[in-house]
């Protein structure tokens, strides 16, 4: 049985990592290199680095910080933020990244998903989707949640799947940083629309939330506040999930 993964998310802003609520109100949570060293020691399954300023300011420190991060990270890690071209992906992989996350780029220049998948393989591409709930639908947002698109969640999931994304990362802006649990309805809709592994993100505040995410069909649970703002770490989370019956990595 495929092991379920717990993926800490590190949001990069300038030289530091931060965490906010609903994509705003960011608090400093540390130094990216030291944070990687900590998650490495705690044997996190994977890491997700997202440069939240890249698509907003057009500048990215990703490659520069990545080279220092990759010296620390023995676990696979994915990076995202402002990626639009295969050349950028090539540079990030050369700097040590195992996968990339493409969110805004997948909306504004969808062909980048298939280009990267064809060149580096689907396993290298995580397609990101940030959504807000609007009544009974989920609207897709881009540019770190600042710009609303006309796209609807399930249509967008299907499209990214067809373009060759290896995994879908679905993130609720409403739940982000609130620590009240994942948006399980959002997750269910994403899972329903694809056979690709779905990573759920946004809202995990305790281990039960991780369990709920996995029960609702997520292959992996991504979280930030859970580890930044609580007495939690990946080994404790793994022990919890093991006790409730999920296969997780044994260290």
């Amino acid at each position, binding site marked *: 049985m495929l092991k379920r993964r717990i993926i800490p998310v590190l949001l990069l802003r300038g030289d*530091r990592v931060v965490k906010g609520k609903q994509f705003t109100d960011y*608090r*400093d*949570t*540390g*130094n990216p*290199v*030291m*944070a990687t*060293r*900590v998650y*490495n*020691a*705690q*044997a996190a399954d994977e890491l997700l680095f997202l440069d939240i300023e890249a698509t907003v300011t057009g500048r990215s420190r990703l490659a520069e910080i990545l080279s220092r991060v990759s010296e620390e990270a023995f676990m696979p890690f994915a990076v995202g933020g402002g990626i639009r071209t295969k050349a950028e992906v090539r540079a990030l992989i050369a700097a040590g990244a195992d996968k990339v996350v493409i969110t805004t780029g997948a909306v504004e220049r969808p062909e980048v998903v298939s280009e990267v998948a064809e060149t580096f393989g689907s396993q290298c591409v995580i397609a990101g989707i940030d959504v807000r709930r609007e009544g009974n639908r989920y609207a897709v947002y881009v540019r770190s949640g600042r710009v609303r698109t006309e796209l609807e969640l399930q249509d967008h999931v299907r499209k990214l799947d067809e373009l060759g994304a290896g995994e879908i990362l679905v993130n609720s802006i409403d739940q982000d940083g609130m*620590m009240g649990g994942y948006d399980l309805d959002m997750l269910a809709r994403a899972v329903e629309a694809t056979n690709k592994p779905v990573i759920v993100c946004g809202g995990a*505040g*305790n*281990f*039960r939330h991780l369990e709920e995410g996995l029960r609702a069909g997520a292959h992996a649970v991504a979280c930030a506040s859970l*580890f*930044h*703002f*609580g*007495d*939690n*770490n990946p*080994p*404790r989370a793994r*022990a*919890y999930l*093991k*006790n409730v019956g999920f296969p997780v990595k044994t260290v």
Partner: protein
Amino acid sequence: MRRCRRCHLPETYETIEFDEDGVCNICRSTEHKKVIDWGARKELLDALVAKYRDKSDYDCIVPFSGGKDSTFQLYYLMKEYKLKPLVVRFNHGFMRPTVRQNAERTLKALGADFLEFTPNWKLVKRVMLEAFKRKTDFCWHCHSGIYTYPLQVAIRYNVPLIFWGEPLAEISHYYDYLNDEIEYEDEAKFNMCRNLGITAEDMHGMINSPEDPVDRRDFIPYTYPALKELKRIQYCSVCLGSFIPWDYTKNSEIIKRELGWETDELEGVPSEINGHGEKIECFMQGPRDYIKYMKRGYSRSTQITAFHVRNGRMTPEQALPYVMNEGKRPPSLDVLLGYLGISEDEFNTIVRATEVSPYHHDYSRTDEAPRLWDQDLWHKEGGAGDDEASRPRVFLKVV
């Protein structure tokens, strides 16, 4: 809550897992402790000591609080191996009078050089509040400093061998005896389970602001030395408990008999189960254990009786009443609130947010643990915990 059918540790205990018989991984690991070839381990220790003896101004560094484990470490190394240690204490600011007396008695009796370092209290208060808000653990300065500072001393004095005490396998499953490995206190272990996942570099950025700047240098005592510095002195940082079987009760009996080491009351814990003197070195232990109870539904009595059960000194049935009767509010909480500068409501709100499922704390509970004999002797701020009416007339401990 689901509990280990043997030691009663609940499912909210960190890194606990249960097997098909309902027994926890920590109990299973301790079973393995009994079949380790301790004779072979002792030979490893002999070889290690021989390798480092007389190579420097000191044979080794012994990080030392004066509590039961570090006192035994020091006693064992000096008696068994006639080592010349440099004893190093990182003072977290909450040393209790009995432990101070114990430390002085031990150091005089054994005859060792002793260095004590006490960090900037103003910074300590700021990081206490920050760590409490983020992790509901106000002890970041201690978790970090006790592991980083002795290594900095090791580098400064060029003493490569550092002996820590109890193995982590006794208390959690980050490491276990099943691995049959020597436990190194290195940076990976520090980051995995010592420093709350917050390094000095992280913490500095978290509290530094233009309005209230923090000197980066104030964080040096909490910074793990660079690997290249440690490698330069060819450091070897190990737990003594990897080489000799660690038994809290026996170790305490030895230091009591040989050094006159005294135990003390531990807030919220019946003295009859803590004859070995666990956690008596810190007067903020009561609030620590209380927070644990509010989050996880177990506290120090459960942890202590779990040791006794695993070591065959108590039956699970004998332990149960202690497990069921803990979690009382410690009077020392007022002292902590004075340091943090927050109200009890604010304190409760922060803790409530990090409750560990499936435990759910009853915030209407009002029962209070007995006040410790020495509470009136502690440093206090904000007038907290300093109630004139409840202050005893006699300030000296009645022995």
